[in-house]
């Protein structure tokens, strides 16, 4: 079973749970390393903000033996982030929802689906981590059409792909503009290890990405 199908199965589970529990207004799952699991691989800003806040909290929660769950009870709704195996499940419910019932449903169904998925496919859930890199421009006659990033990112992705090389990446700007482009490791030693992505000027113009801006980069897998 591919990782995409794994994500689809989990996403479908959440959708079905939402159907039987209309008090659930929003839900999603993310992994311990902060990777958000969605059917189409696209995370909305709300998901990213939640994961960021939760990770900040998880760092400090070492003082109480790690972080198992977070519940926020507000006048207009309730939010719970709970650990399910090595995943975190985020559920937003209406203010008067019977949370004991809701959380028992989600915390029974999701682990059951995970167990089932593990039986069907023993491959653990490992989603391709995207990288946030700082744009620098690639100029000169030999700049070519490929972007350049640090070798360690390419190696990390390759490990996730069981040794398969990564030759193409998708770049997404903060404005949501995307492009697919070939990738190589940074050849200029002075610019290595700085979290940069060197983008040829032409591609920079197309993306409307400026030097110093952050972009999200993820590998394209065949």
């Amino acid at each position, binding site marked *: 079973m591919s990782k995409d199908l794994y994500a689809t199965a989990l996403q479908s589970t959440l959708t079905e749970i939402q159907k039987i529990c209309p008090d659930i207004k929003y839900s999603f799952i993310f992994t311990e390393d902060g990777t958000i699991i969605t059917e189409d691989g696209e995370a909305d800003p709300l998901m990213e903000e939640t994961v960021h806040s939760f990770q900040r909290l998880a760092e400090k*929660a070492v*003082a109480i033996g790690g972080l198992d769950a977070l519940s*926020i009870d507000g006048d207009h709704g309730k939010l719970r982030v709970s650990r399910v195996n090595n995943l975190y499940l985020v559920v937003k419910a209406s203010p008067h929802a019977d949370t004991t019932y809701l959380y028992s449903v989600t915390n029974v169904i999701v682990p059951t689906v995970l167990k089932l998925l593990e039986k069907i496919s023993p491959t653990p859930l490992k989603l391709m981590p995207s990288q946030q890199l700082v744009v620098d421009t690639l100029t000169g006659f030999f700049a070519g059409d490929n972007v350049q990033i640090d070798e360690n990112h390419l190696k990390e992705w390759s490990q996730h792909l069981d040794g398969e090389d990564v030759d193409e990446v998708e770049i997404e700007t903060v404005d949501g503009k995307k492009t697919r482009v070939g990738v190589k490791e940074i050849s200029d030693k002075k610019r290595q290890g700085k979290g940069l992505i060197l983008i040829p000027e032409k591609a920079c113009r197309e993306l409307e990405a400026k030097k110093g801006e952050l972009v999200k980069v993820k590998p394209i897998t065949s």
Partner: protein
Amino acid sequence: MSSRSELEEIPSENELEEKTENLHVSLKNIKAMEGVIGYILRNSKSASVDIKDPSKIIDYAILSSTVLDSGQCMTDAFELGRVNNIVLEGGNIKVLSLTIGDNRISVFMNKKVDHNAIFKDLRLK
């Protein structure tokens, strides 16, 4: 139409001090309960910390502040309205955090303690 906050009377300084004093008394009683590890109460004028293990004070103070700040970020993002309480559950300890007026409170306890009872007790003050 007047909003809820406009309709609420602004408490005088004496009333605020009295409220904080009541919270202190409540928290001292709560601290004496079985399974409660301690508490942190902070407002714009003072802070009081009573944690059984003094070596944990700084870690707990940082955690308390992060819970309330991160909780507020998530509350805003998910449009949860006014926060009643935030509960953070760790491996063996949980934290109940809430804001009452100017006072930011975190109560640390073992996971078996009924945090809802503590929350109700504090809200009544």
